[in-house]
Structure formats: C-alpha cells, structure tokens
C-alpha cells in the first residue's frame, strides 16, 4: 500500500515535468495556454495526493487554489488578453525548438544529479519530489529566457511557481502559512502582470518584449 502511494506521487510529479516539456515546444499562444492549464491541473492532482498520503487536510486548500485559480482562472484571463490584443499568432522562439528541448533534458539531468545525492537522508517522497520540482523550476526559467513574447514569459513564470509549490508540498509538514502566502503572492503577482500587460498594450500596440528594448537604445 505504502509502495503504491509513493509510486503515484512520483508519477504525478513526473507528469508535471512532462507538461513542462510540452510547454517548451508550443509554437502558438492558445496551445501554450492549454498546456498551462494542464500543468496546473497536474499540480492540483499532485498536491491533493500529497494531502492524502501525508494526512494533511490543509493541503487540499492549496490543491483547490491550484485547480480553480491556476488551472482555470489564469489561463482564461490570459486567453482574453490574447484575444483582445489580437496576438494569437506564432511565437518567435529564440534558438529553435530542438536546441531548447535538449537544454530542458540537460536541466532535468542536472537537477537529478544535484538533488538526489544531497537528499539521501530525507524520506523518499520528498527526495524525488524535490528533484523533479527543481527540474520544473529550471525548465520554467529556460522558457522565460528563450521566449520574447510577454504572455509566454508570464506562462514560463507561472510554471516555475508551480514547480516551487510542488517542492513546498513535498516537504512534509511545511507550515500552512507558506502555502497560502505562495498562492496569495501568485495572485498578487498575476494582477500586477495583468496591469502591466494592459499598460504595455496601451503604449506599444504589441506585447513583444523585444519592442520594449528599443526604448533603451542610446540611453546608456
């Protein structure tokens, strides 16, 4: 019984890494937002499973936030922004898909290599969760670096946050304060980003961050 519950936890965490990889090669914004919703949904399942096996009912709240807020509300709102701005065109990825995927694989290898030996003493669930969570965090970073579109950078950041929540829930008994605050700060962060997106729209008629960089020219 104990074995299977560990296996399910690992499987869900593994799915999250897989969803991160799915994000890396999405070339259209709509598809990217669908994968974001899937990512958050897998996170919600994973957190709920942790709540079950750790017998920690407060984690269900975190799972509910992940499901309602991150898997539904945010993709929906981002989709509205995309529609309103009329930018459902191709995403210009920097460096090409193949190279990015290879980079992602290297990052997963790196995080397993770094985390597994270090966490040998902690319990096995936390051990592999942390390693996989670090992979999700690093892939999120990679995505933010390779994309130049403001919406896809935000998506990269949200997947990074998902990885951190996976780590926080994998750490058995981590106080509730932190989970709520994480969820809350995501909310705040999202509002801020939303405001910024609209402001950027107001000023530039584009949400390509590359266009922003022109304004720095000559300033230095």
């Amino acid at each position, binding site marked *: 019984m104990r074995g299977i519950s560990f296996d399910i936890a690992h499987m869900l965490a593994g799915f999250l890494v897989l969803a991160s990889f799915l994000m890396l090669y999405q070339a259209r914004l709509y598809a990217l937002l669908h994968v974001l919703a899937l990512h958050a949904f897998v996170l919600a399942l994973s957190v709920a499973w942790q709540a079950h096996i750790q017998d920690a009912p407060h984690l269900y709240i975190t799972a509910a936030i992940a499901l309602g807020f991150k898997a539904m509300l945010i993709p929906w709102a981002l989709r509205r922004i995309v529609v309103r701005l009329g930018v459902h065109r191709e995403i210009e990825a920097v460096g090409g898909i193949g190279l990015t995927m290879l980079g992602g694989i290297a990052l997963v290898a790196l995080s397993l290599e770094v985390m597994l030996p*270090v966490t040998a003493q902690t319990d096995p669930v936390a051990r592999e969760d942390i390693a996989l969570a670090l992979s999700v965090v690093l892939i999120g970073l990679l995505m933010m670096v390779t994309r130049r579109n403001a919406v896809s950078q935000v998506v990269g950041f949200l997947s990074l946050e998902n990885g*951190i929540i996976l780590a926080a829930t994998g750490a058995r008994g981590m*106080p509730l304060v932190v989970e709520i*605050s994480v969820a809350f700060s995501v909310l705040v962060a999202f509002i801020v980003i939303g405001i910024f997106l609209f402001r950027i729209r107001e*000023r530039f008629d584009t949400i390509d961050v590359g266009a922003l960089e022109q304004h720095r020219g000559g*300033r*230095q």
Partner: protein
Amino acid sequence: MSANLVSGVLFVPLLAAGLLAVIPGYRLSAGLNMLASLITLGFALSLLVAERPGSGQLLVVDDMNVVFIVLNAFVGFTTSVFSATYIGHELETGRLTPLHLRFYHAMYQLMLFGMNMALTANNIGLMWVAVELATLTTVLMVGIYRTPAALEAAWKYFILGSVGIALALFGTILVYLAARPVVGEGMDAMVWTTLAAHARDFDPSLLNIAFVFLLLGYGTKVGLAPLHAWLPDAHAEGPTPISAVLSGLLLNVALYALLRFKILLAANPASIAPGPLMMGLGLLSLIFAGFMLYRRRDIKRMFAYSSIEHMGIIVFAFGLAGPLGNFAGLLQMTMHSLTKSAIFFSVGHVTQVKRSQWMADMGGLTESHPMLGWGLVAGVAAIAGLPPFGVFMSEFLVVSAAFATHPILAVLLVFGLLLAFGALLLRLGDVAFGPVKGLVGPVEASSIPLFAHLALVLVAGIWLPPPMVAWFQHVARMLG
C-alpha cells in the same frame, strides 16, 4: 509594552497606507506620509532602549535587526520629507496626476511596512513574503510615470525580481527540509531562532545547496553583478524618492535576509564556507560597476551603478567575516545608505530644474544653484570615499581587513575602488563646475534631509560614538 513597540513599527505604516489610499489632496497626504514615517521612526528608536520581548514564532527583535530597523525608519522618514517637495513639483509640471499621487503615497507606506516586516520576521517564510511585498510595491512605483522607458524598467524589474524571489523561496524550502529531521515538523522548523540554535546538526549538503539558491535569489535583489540588470533601469526611470529608498533601504533588506542565512551556515561546521562565494560576487560587482561608471550619460543611472559598486564592497566585507570584516561591512552599509539617499535627494531636484537626466545638459551647478551644487559635490566626495567622510573610514577598514587575510583580493579591491573613484570625480567635474549649462530655473528644494544625511556621514567619519562602536562590534561577533 515592548511587544507593542514592535507592532508599532509594523502597524503604523500599514494603517497609514490604508488611510492614504482614501485621502484625496496631495498636501494633506504628503503631510500624513511624513507624520506616519516620523511615528514609525519614534517606535524604531524606542526599540533601541526598551526591554526586548521574547522572540515569538513570527517576530523577533535582536541586536542585529535593530540596527537595520532604525536605519530603515530614519531614511524612510527623511525621504518622505524630500518626497513632499519633489512630488509637489511633479504635480505642477503635470508628470503625475493627483490620483497617481494617492496611489504613490499608499504604496510608499506599504513598502515601508513590507521592509519592516522583513526585518522583524522571525520566520523564514514570513520574511520571504515580506520581501516579495516590498518588491511588488516598488515595481508599481517604478512604473508610475508610464513612459515607455519606465514601463520597460518596471517590467524588467518585475520579471527579474520575481525569478530571484522564486529561487529564494526554493532555498527557503530546502532550509526547512534540512531543519525538519532535527527540529521536527511544522512551524518550529521555520522559526529563525530555533534554526540558529540547532544549525549545528543540520544536514550540511542540503544547507549548501539551499544557500546557493538563497544567494542567487536574494542576491538578485541586492543587485550583485551578474544578476543586477534590473537595478540601473529601475533607479533611472522611477521617481527619485523611490531611487533613494531602493538604494538606501531595499538593497539592505535583501542583504539582511542573506546574512541571516549566512549565520546558519557559519554555525554548521561541515557546510561550505559562504565567504568565498560572497567575496567573489562582491568583487565582481565592484569591478564591473567600476568600469560601467565610465560610460554613463544619465545621472541617475550613474549613481545606480555606484550602488552596485557599494553593495559589492559590502558583500565582500561580510564575506571576509571575522570581527573586523563584519564591522566594516555594517559601517559601510550604514554610510552607503545615508550618503546614497542624500545624493539622490540632490539629484532629484537637479533633474527637476534641468528637466533632464542627461549629464550633457548639466554644468556649473555650484554656480547656478550653489546649495544643490555643493550638496551634490559633498555627497559625491563622500560616496567616492574621500576623507573626512564616513565612507572613507569604512572603506579603509574593509581594505585593511582584506589585506590582513587575503592580500591578493585586497589588491583587486583597491583597484576597483580607485576605478570607481576616478569615474565619479570625472563626471562630477563636468556637472558641478565649469560653465553653466542647461536650464537655470529657481528650485524649491528641501535641503534639510540632504544636509542632515551629509552631516551624519561627516560626523561618523570624524568621530564614531563609543556606544555605537560597541554595538556594531557586538553585532559583528553575532555574524561570526
């Protein structure tokens, strides 16, 4: 009684933020902003003398953070005085609307609340939340002018700051994981005082990785060299009072968070020494910023690079550790906060007179605006490390501490200091002396905060009060 003092430091800004959000009329709200900051300063000062409350699960006041809290409240107050005149001018020239100002004042107090909470937090989770709050409020204020450049700066700051803060949270989780087997599950494993007491028994390899994440995460907020990209833009494009508090306070708060974790590592004999990492990043920031200073054309951007340089020196000093290194780091940090915010006070008025931030549009300031011009000269002389100002003394201490233990690094340190020194004096010559250039309109400047800061820096350079020396020495020993 003393528990109330701590809550005073926190709740006065929070209450004021709520009030300022609903009060229209900028004169009233600017006055209220000053008053709230003054009351907060009063509470902060009373923490120095009052009996300490026992540390709770959320808040703590000890000898170390009192230094930071008082400095924070003081610069917060003087900046609110400067901000009142500065903001009035912005309203007249139409760069900001009354609605913007209401938002600005509320955010200012919310930012002070966030920083005070980060400094008094006894819980590494709470500390993280507070740093995030302070970051978000400053992001909103940096973007307040809504020009393309300001939006770019705010966006860059927001994205880099969020990534930094996310990495810091990952590090915080790892610290919890390291503490859990020793301290037990739940809240206790995040309480700073408990962590410090048991750090000796933590798993060292987990702690090492946690520190790397924390260094990268909070280091982004400190503005250390490879992670500094947000800092010059945020300083240059936001309102100048915000540049003053960013340089003078927010960088310190992030540094404080880092120092707290450094103490944990220092207490664990099997973990890596945090010193070399910090010294390396510090030196890199110093020398990089030293070179970058030469190519600046925008005056606020230049002083932003000077902040990177000084944070480099401070992190280097704390990396050296030992009683002398830590003492020098604390002193350098205090002096930098006071001097850099004074410089931004004068730069703020200068850019308002000249209607430009470009140094090419400025010249002969000491002739056209003697008070502002000489204030700027004194500030730059102080920040460049000329005697008799306090920065000279603290830099001298850093250099001598470095020569005592790492002579080769000390040579690099001196090289970086001279590099920055040359750049600052070169630019100062063009701006402050020579023929008068640009607009020479009258200026409605509040010179009290500017000269109050400079006077303190001057006094500290000549004579440090013995109780303060004793206090800093005590804190330096705590830092290990």
